């Protein structure tokens, strides 16, 4: 666990000698706690205390990269059990398993390369290939690997093999992309650890249950391997949930370094639906890598969305880009509504407009992701800013009318907006999104009468 500034201060000489470049020991301690200054800058501190501080400042769960310099992915370094306590940091890697015996490897690689989907401004995709040495043979594994390297030379890779000779041959070919080696078990731990050490690559350590895997982790650590990944061979959802929870809890709450590593989960199940559920459980509950046996588009969309949601920062409201959005196929006579760019607001309003079945222009204004009332209170959803946004959006050219529907909560802005938006009429809409379908129906009826 990282120490606070005060805790570090207690370990310092408290002489305020200024040799570190700071006026007081306390000021220095605060900077060290923030990670802005190295403790080494204090000339008075003992080696023993230095070691203690170093130990305390290493993350409780180790983080590291794999992949090439341009495609590298970080895993691990998580700090909490529940996302509201801070956030989940390094999103679960979704890896697609290809067997070296598969007959259509080229097509499978294409599936990975074509997996990206845009969602709320982010590009989401299958991140890595888990190449499994089903054949048990070196040459077949290398043939499959060549196909991957040919199509995707720096895609992050995980090698699934129990054989040290296969591992060495594959790693020799991929020195630039730092692959993960999976797996070391009680039979091959010594050879696999040697390879992981020699090539400086992360190693998956696998045995049934936490106690057994701990013994293997100790062995690997004693050989100087730092970048380890845990697999407790869970078979049921219950085992995944409990093992992952206990490993993270032990690492974070009990400071157990031997369990302070990322977790890999093999979600492969007999049917795609259930595999999606198991993968979801692993994403929600602490797995850093999830291996999938198939990647149809519907499944990717589900898992990408879940991962995006759960790894979002609870402190930062999810935002939608400013702009005029079409709901349905609106034309020059369709209504124009405006609201803020808080993602929840946007989703609710858009959903209710869809429910109304009335094509509508939806103006989403950048208010730093605040909801309507909060944005108004913060001066971000004001009459002048709304007027400016509407003028600059170019929506006027697409409309045959000049009517703007504003959220009911900011009814007080009506006159001020009309004042600043010459020729426009402002209509006050509903306070809650749920009232939108009824409101729009009435609104369209009243326009038809005129």
């Amino acid at each position, binding site marked *: 666990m990282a120490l606070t500034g005060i805790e570090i201060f207690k370990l310092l000489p408290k002489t305020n000698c200024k040799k570190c470049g700071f006026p007081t020991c306390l000021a220095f301690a605060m900077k060290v706690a923030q990670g802005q200054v190295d403790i080494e800058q204090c000339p008075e501190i003992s080696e023993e205390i230095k070691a203690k501080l170093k130990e305390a400042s290493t993350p409780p769960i180790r983080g590291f990269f794999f992949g090439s310099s341009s495609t590298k992915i970080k895993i691990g370094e998580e700090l909490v059990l529940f996302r509201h306590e801070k956030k989940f940091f390094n999103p679960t890697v979704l890896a697609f398993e290809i067997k070296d015996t598969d007959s259509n490897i080229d097509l499978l690689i294409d599936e990975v390369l074509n997996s990206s989907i845009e969602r709320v401004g982010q590009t989401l995709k299958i991140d890595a290939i888990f190449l499994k040495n089903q054949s048990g043979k070196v040459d077949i594994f290398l043939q499959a690997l060549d196909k991957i390297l040919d199509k995707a030379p720096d895609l992050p890779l995980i090698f699934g093999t129990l054989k040290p000779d296969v591992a060495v041959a594959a790693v020799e070919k991929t020195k630039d992309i730092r692959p993960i080696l999976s797996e070391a078990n009680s039979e091959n731990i010594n050879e696999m650890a040697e390879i992981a050490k020699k090539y400086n690559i992360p190693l998956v350590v696998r045995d049934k249950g936490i106690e057994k895997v701990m013994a293997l982790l100790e062995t690997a650590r004693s050989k100087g391997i730092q970048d380890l990944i845990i697999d407790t061979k869970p078979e049921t959802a219950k085992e995944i949930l409990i093992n992952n929870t206990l490993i993270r809890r032990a690492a974070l709450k009990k400071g157990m370094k031997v369990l302070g590593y990322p977790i890999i989960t093999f979600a492969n199940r007999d049917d795609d*639906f259930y595999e999606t559920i198991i993968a979801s459980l692993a994403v929600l509950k602490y797995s850093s890598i999830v291996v999938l046996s198939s990647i149809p588009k*519907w499944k990717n969309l589900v898992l990408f969305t*879940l991962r995006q949601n759960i790894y979002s920062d609870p402190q930062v409201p999810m935002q939608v880009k400013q702009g005029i959005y079409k709901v349905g196929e609106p034309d020059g006579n369709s209504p124009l509504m405006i609201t803020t760019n808080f993602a929840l607001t946007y989703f609710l309003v858009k959903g209710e407009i869809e429910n109304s079945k009335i094509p509508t222009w939806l103006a989403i204004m950048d208010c730093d992701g605040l909801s309507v009332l909060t944005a108004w209170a913060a001066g971000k959803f004001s009459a002048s800013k709304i007027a400016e946004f509407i003028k600059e959006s170019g929506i006027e050219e697409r409309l045959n009318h000049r009517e703007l529907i504003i959220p009911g909560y900011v009814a007080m802005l009506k006159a001020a907006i009309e004042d600043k938006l010459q020729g426009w009429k402002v209509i006050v809409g509903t306070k809650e999104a749920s009232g939108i*379908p009824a409101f729009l129906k009435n609104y369209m009826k009243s326009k038809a009468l005129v």
Partner: protein
Amino acid sequence: MNFSIPKETYAGIIPEIVFGKGKKAYFGGQSALPFHFFEGHFPHKPLIAFEIQDQIPEDYPEELAKTYSSVWDDTLRWARFCESLGAQAIALRLTSTHPDSRDSKPEEAADKVKKLLSEIDLPLIILGSNHTEKDADVLPIVADASRGYNCIIGKAQEGNYKTVVASAMAGGHFLIAMSDLDVNLAKQLNILITQMGFPREKIIIDPMCSALGYGFEYTYSVMERIRIAGILQGDSMLCLPMVADVGFYVWKTKETQASESDIPEWGSLHERALMWEAVTACSFLLSGADLLIMRHPEAVKIVNRFMNDLFS
């Protein structure tokens, strides 16, 4: 190597809910965070209730219509169909009472509830149309019509809780109390409800549900926070079972409706739609939901498999 399991010390137990008259259904009663079998006692699996409506649904997309269109014009037939699918409880949503829908009368709703209760043996959850004012008119009448049947009724919200709570109390029912995605609002509403003399052990918290991709992480974290505050920190006003009204939110999303020809990169609609519901539901089980209200029978099957796997 020796691994001593790092256990939490708990300060509360979730009240056990047993509802229904003939056939009964159960949930709650656990003494630890969701499925932490190594440090607590879990007498019941979470419960899934099948949602039905009191009229032909106005907004069921194709994937649901395929399953229910042959039965949905008759509430009783619809309920029997769900029973044949293995439903352990039914959630009847009185959508026709909504002013924007048919604005049907409370008495009409009460008649339907009575008929359902007399013909069907399954435990019943009775939900208004989610129109605060209209629910305050409808729920007292239906709560009275179902007196003695030991139902769950809802939802009581800030704007109507006095009437709804009084009617649940008079009818001897359990109560769903809904607030807007906030731990403190949930707590405050429960305090107000118990101050009226309604027993704490008969409240089910609805922290407000959402669908995957549409505010999902808010519901997920609020549920986790409510459960932690209740069971770990011992806040009795939050140490209560929770409901996730999953189907209602999931089947509004574009992901359950857009065809593959509309959005090719989203893939096959059938799988996507029912997994949108299944994954949303399974996730909320992990964040603390004890009762799920769901729509698609295939999604329910998958969630049941997940629960059995967790309880293996």
